[in-house]
């Protein structure tokens, strides 16, 4: 791998991990506070804070994907498509099953579901071209 590509990959790993650590810390700190005795508007404001590090992580993913070559970008694109479609299908099917009596799925699980599917689809895509 060229020096520039190595540097981009390293920068991505550091910034993405930092954003994820920031996300975990804000969740751990703010969830107990939001469950406390505070006005509704301040609770809502507190629970939007973890969205900021997630936005940073998304921007880092975008920057990293733009630094990839055309085949790697194709793998990422297909992985996002597969993950998006499967997430929509899974949540849609769950929604239908809720009518039949299944417990409600917390909406907060949609992003982790998408991320897990995106990771799996990327791994499969990489193996296809190995």
């Amino acid at each position: 791998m060229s020096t520039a590509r190595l540097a981009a990959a390293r920068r991505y790993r550091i910034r993405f991990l930092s954003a994820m650590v920031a996300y975990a810390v804000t969740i751990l700190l703010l969830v107990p506070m939001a469950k406390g005795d505070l006005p509704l508007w301040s609770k809502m404001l507190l629970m939007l804070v973890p969205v900021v590090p997630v936005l940073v992580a998304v921007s880092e993913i975008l920057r990293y994907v733009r630094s990839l070559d055309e085949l790697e970008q194709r793998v990422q694109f297909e992985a996002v498509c597969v993950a998006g479609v499967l997430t929509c299908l899974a949540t849609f099917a769950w929604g239908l099953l809720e009518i039949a009596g299944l417990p409600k799925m917390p909406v907060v699980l949609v992003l982790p579901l998408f991320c897990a599917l995106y990771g799996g689809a990327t791994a499969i895509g990489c193996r296809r071209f190995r």
Partner: protein
Amino acid sequence: MNNRLRVLRAERSLSQAELADALGVSRQTVNAIETGKYDPSLPLAFKIAQLFERAIESIFQPEQESLPHE
């Protein structure tokens, strides 16, 4: 699409990693092109042709069945 990339690379005694560096792509991409798993974009095909100082059609040839019938 068929290609002669592996042969041309061997003629110049280049490793996949060295060729990848020269083209600004990953080694996996060079390997995927050589094994026919991935057809490069036109800009990348031109870059490869320039690097080996050959015409694109002397490196990349379409599969026989994909050619239009006369």
